[in-house]
């Protein structure tokens, strides 16, 4: 199951969809909205996405994981829109015969998702300011000094 949604992520349904008698191990990763980031307080996040490309890239990532590990089933759901503290922004679930395969594949999927899938988050800080998060670009939009 590859899905983008504006609704609450049902990670139980996702997990059930990837369970299998051929798998001895299931790993589920949830990204959740954390209150503190580098000493600053967040009150909410807004996620924007380019849906067609995001779904295409998620499918490619699933194919990459399957080429590297004996994945039985895998699923990724990413939420878009306005998220409050503690809300789940992303769920990655994978089943494999053995546990280290499932841990490695799950970690690979979320690491790669953060590198290549066209989704962006905007911080809503507790001081009322907002800020797009664009790694490698500083707060003023200029390239950081290396």
């Amino acid at each position: 199951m590859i899905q983008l949604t504006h609704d609450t992520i049902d990670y139980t349904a996702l997990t059930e969809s990837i369970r299998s008698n051929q798998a001895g191990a299931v790993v589920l990763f949830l990204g959740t909205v954390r209150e503190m980031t580098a000493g600053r307080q967040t009150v909410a996040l807004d996620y924007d996405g380019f849906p067609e490309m995001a779904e295409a890239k998620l499918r490619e990532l699933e194919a990459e994981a399957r080429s590297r590990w004996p994945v039985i089933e895998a699923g990724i759901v990413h939420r878009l829109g306005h998220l409050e503290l503690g809300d789940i922004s992303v769920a990655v679930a994978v089943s494999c015969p053995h546990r280290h395969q499932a841990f490695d594949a799950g970690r690979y999927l979320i690491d790669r998702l953060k590198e290549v899938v066209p989704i962006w988050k905007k911080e809503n800080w507790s001081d009322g300011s907002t800020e797009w998060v664009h790694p490698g670009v500083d707060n003023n939009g200029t390239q950081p000094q290396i």
Partner: protein
Amino acid sequence: MKTKLKLFAKARDLVGAAELELDLPESATVADLRIALGEHSPALQPLLASLLVAVGTDYASPTTRIGGRQDLAVFPPVSGG
């Protein structure tokens, strides 16, 4: 040639539009698009060097010809997850 592109996240906010039409020669590459974007929307200038360009649902390489395409997308580094 009329070239259409979508904008996302901070790029959209700085330009003040979700879509944009630029006139580019058919031989225009990603580098040419960057220059044209900066001229069209000076507010994008500080973000320009880090912008990513997609053709359809794939990242464009620096040499991809994009002049006249209707399915371009331009956006800053991703931060999903």
